[in-house]
């Protein structure tokens, strides 16, 4: 994990935030896992340490990770999905784009719903991020 595309218009720190979240959902990162330190990750993927710091701060703000001073960053054990409005709007926008693409690809409403269901199933059918816990 942790590959970034610097030419993307999505800021690098945002890409990292998304990748950690995706890792947690997929189960490649489990609660309590230690993330690389800022210094380690910076040289692992050749990215500005300030950018990585920014990503970790954002992940901490969203309660995805916990930072224990002097010890490191860990995937949070007590993640609570907080549906704030800003994030809901983003999710809706992303779905909207996908629906447009799907329509252009010739999918019916039924087929789109089936597709979404199969994607959800690929994440282990967990009902929420909380269920990842154990």
């Amino acid at each position, binding site marked *: 994990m942790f590959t970034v595309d610097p*030419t*993307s*218009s999505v800021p690098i720190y945002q890409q990292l935030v998304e990748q950690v979240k995706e890792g947690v959902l997929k189960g490649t990162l489990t609660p309590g896992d230690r993330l690389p330190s800022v*210094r380690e990750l*910076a*040289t692992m993927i050749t990215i*500005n*340490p*300030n950018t990585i710091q920014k990503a970790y701060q954002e992940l901490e703000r969203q309660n995805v990770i916990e930072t224990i001073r002097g010890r490191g960053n860990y995937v949070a054990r007590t993640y609570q999905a907080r549906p704030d409005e800003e994030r809901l709007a983003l999710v809706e926008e992303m779905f909207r784009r996908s629906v447009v693409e799907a329509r252009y690809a010739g999918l019916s409403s039924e087929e789109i719903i089936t597709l979404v269901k199969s994607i959800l199933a690929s994440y282990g059918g967990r009902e929420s991020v909380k269920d990842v816990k154990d």
Partner: protein
Amino acid sequence: MLRIKDLNKKFGSYQVLSDINLEVSEGSITGLVGPNGAGKTTLLQAIMGITKPDEGSITFMGQDIQSAWEVKNRIGYVPDQSVFYPGFTVADMVRFYGYAYATWDEERYAELSKVLVLPLNKKIKSLSKGMKAQLAILLALSFRPKMLILDEPTAGLDPINRRLLYNLMLDEVAENGTNVLISSHGLAELERICDHIVFIDKGRILLDSDLDSLKQQIRKVQVVFQGEFPSELKGHPDLIGLEQFGRVYRLIFQSDDILRVIQQYQPVLLEDIDISLEEIFIYNVRGVADDVKFLSRK
């Protein structure tokens, strides 16, 4: 941390640097970008006191850089061309730095020289360009600098050594919060490692911005209009770039005004596409003029 105010420099009647104002804040990695002959090296040399500016001031850690040797000795400088004595061996050069810099750290040097392995008994003049660059960075990091000034440090390095050099630099920044001012033509690499970008052309600063906000300010969209390309967009001052492929236009711009105009025409297609630092650079330097000429020729 580093502050440059109203810097001017002429070589004869040629204005190399005009009204340069620049600030590199603590913990930042700033990329200095510009075409050949833009004045990048002269600016970096002025900071190091190698070139004396005609006007303006440069302060580092709050002190004037021209007079305060103690502060200048905290800057690690990697020039674009090797300035080491050609008759010295690598070991001589290491010893020389040990004497010259009060903050020389033998332990740090030992640690770094495990990663950057150089032939100690070889003379400087028999080293390859890449080896000289590696020696320069090794020496600059070994006296625990507060700031690094790197003038095209990766020119002539192979991809593996280039990455190694960047990683050493990033490690230094992560560990010690060292400031970096780096000039390079490797824009894809700068995009990874810099948080701040300064464009310079013909001795002037064209743009000085946080990289994340730069990429949000400058947008690139792909549009298909129902009819002709709107004439009011042609000469729009905020339009930086324009390309055409059949009915598809790609516009690069830095204001929402253009987006509003596009939307008024109810385009068949309007979508955002990614823009790289390289594109931002090319359009900023070359400007829209050439594209417009190209378009009108057809």
